[in-house]
């Protein structure tokens, strides 16, 4: 998706806009104008939004028998007679349940996600520089193709890739997934970075040129340090996207030793007998890292979003 038109991508996240300061808080809709019904409505919404997560969290600390015997909400009526336990987490992280060890999958998720996040950044930054600060034939056409590819679903590439990976024996390897995510993430990376770079002050780049700096030097000394917010935005997007991906991991990594959290958690869903009590804790193990990344780096994430990021 392209930018909303209202914001210069990355140049000041919207929450920093001073517009709201100008609002007259008494005349209707500004900050602090909430009446009690509005406040209560927002509180209800927040509670509604959090209920499912709270349910998961509570169940993850209850024994299998208790999970079966009563709903998770009953602990609110008898918090002290509940047998709280961390056994589910211990078991899910250390043992094989239904052929899945979430501890191993946890490591695998990192092994998949970190290279798939870090490697495309440099490649995309160079490309974004070329699209922004260099004049060349075909530049605009190529970039329009990149923009178009933002909305193209990754599914278009999967049939031939699966076939190709089978032939060259890459199926089930980390390399297969890394390369796929680098390719699939590239249009978004180039787009975000180019959008950001074209908002940088031209005068700085011009003066570097006059001082005799080559493109290569300008890129490393000026553009990369100045683009850190945009690099961070993309990194968070890509990290969350790869960590949370199910389709690519299912196709190219499958359920073997290299399986990642999302695939492992999906595999646990069907458990009705043994292992059923572990679903909640496995779910929490799967979502905890993206939650931490998200909460601690929310500002960069929002900045990337307002730069108009969508991934097909």
């Amino acid at each position, binding site marked *: 998706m392209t930018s909303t*038109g209202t914001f210069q991508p990355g140049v000041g996240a919207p929450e920093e806009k001073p517009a709201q300061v100008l609002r007259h808080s008494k005349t209707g809709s500004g900050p602090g104008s*909430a009446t009690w019904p509005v406040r209560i409505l927002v509180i209800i919404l927040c509670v509604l939004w959090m*209920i499912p997560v709270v349910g998961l969290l509570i169940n993850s600390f209850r024994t299998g028998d208790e999970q079966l015997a009563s709903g*998770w909400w009953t602990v609110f009526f008898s918090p002290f007679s509940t047998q709280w336990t961390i056994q589910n987490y211990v078991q899910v992280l250390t043992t094989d349940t239904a052929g899945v060890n979430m501890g191993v999958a946890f490591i695998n998720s990192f092994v998949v996600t970190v290279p798939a996040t870090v490697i495309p950044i*440099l490649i995309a930054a160079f490309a974004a520089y070329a699209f922004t600060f260099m004049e060349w034939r075909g530049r605009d056409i190529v970039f329009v193709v990149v*923009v178009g590819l933002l909305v193209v*679903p990754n*599914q278009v590439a999967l049939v031939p890739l699966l076939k190709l990976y089978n032939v060259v024996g890459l199926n089930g390897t980390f390399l297969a997934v890394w390369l796929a995510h680098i390719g699939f993430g590239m249009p978004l990376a180039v787009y975000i970075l180019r959008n950001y770079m074209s908002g940088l002050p031209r005068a700085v780049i011009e003066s570097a040129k006059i001082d005799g700096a080559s493109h290569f030097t300008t890129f490393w000394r000026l553009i990369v340090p100045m683009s850190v917010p945009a690099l961070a935005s993309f990194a968070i997007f890509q990290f969350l996207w790869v960590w949370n991906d199910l389709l690519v991991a299912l196709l190219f990594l499958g359920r073997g030793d290299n399986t990642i959290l999302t695939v492992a958690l999906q595999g646990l869903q069907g458990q009705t007998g043994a292992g059923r009590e572990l679903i909640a804790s496995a779910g929490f193990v799967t979502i905890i890292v993206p939650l931490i990344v998200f909460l601690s780096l929310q500002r960069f994430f929002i900045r990337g979003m307002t730069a108009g990021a969508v991934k*097909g």
Partner: protein
Amino acid sequence: MGIKIANAVLAVIGGIGGAMILFWLLNKLAESLKGRWEDRVKPWMFAGPAILAIGVYLIYPAIQTFQFSFANEDSTAYVGFKNYQDLLTDSTFLLVLLNNLLWIIIVPAATVALGLGVAVLADRLRPKGEKISKTFIFLPMAISMVGAATIWRSIYEYKPAGTPQTGLLNAIFGLFDKGPFFWYSIDTLHFNSLLLMIIFLWTQVGYSMVLLSAAVKAVPEDTIEAGRIDGAGERRIFFSIVVPQIWPTVITVFITVLISVMKIFDIVYVTTNGAFNTDVVGRRFFDELFTQGNNGYASAIVVLLMIAVIPVLIYQVRHFRAEEAMR
């Protein structure tokens, strides 16, 4: 385990280091050229690796997929339009299309409406309350669809009658002596698809809220003041002054959600695996490709998906061009 981590570290170092050396070499190569050639070649050296990645992983496979869609299941012989004919006359596939259509009609619009509603409400709180409430609503965006489906078990779970209900919804209905219901199996009026859409909405409304809230705050105060002086009520001000000014953002959110809904896969795969008439194009594609091993059908489904995406793609490119012209 150690080998895996070492592998990943190696990949990061090798990937970054390799890319640095590659760009350095490409740059040297370009600089060794004489005069104008250096300026001509250098941009391609800078943009080349990215273009190559996109070409190898998106464009070339897309062309191949198009070819495969006219070939048999293991892509060894052409069969003309047979795959398309088979799919479009298969009643189960038509139901899949209908389901996707429902997702497309309901979810993007609902995401925009809910996100805008929450944004307008939360913006009226004091800054601290606004920040906290927005974080709560926004939080599920970080959660994978698999995670979300797991989380929603605490609401939708079904246990046979006579045993304690551990899903909140069945427990509530139980209070009124109704049920228990196996929610995911109720396909009357596509009720079960609606339940899946709610999970999806739960993860996406925060995104919509954050973008729309930022847009609402950027609406110039004097346009609102002018409306007020002319005697417009709050509602009138909102729909006649605020909404037109945030319209570009509304479109952005709508299209973003539209795209993700068109190719929706995870949520259906994890919850019902397409059973009970909840199947969608993304899951059927996976099924044909991976479970049935039918490249022809899988490719044809993707091509149909691509055709559906084309209007969005055209809009996207036009919108981008218009924006560039304004720079």
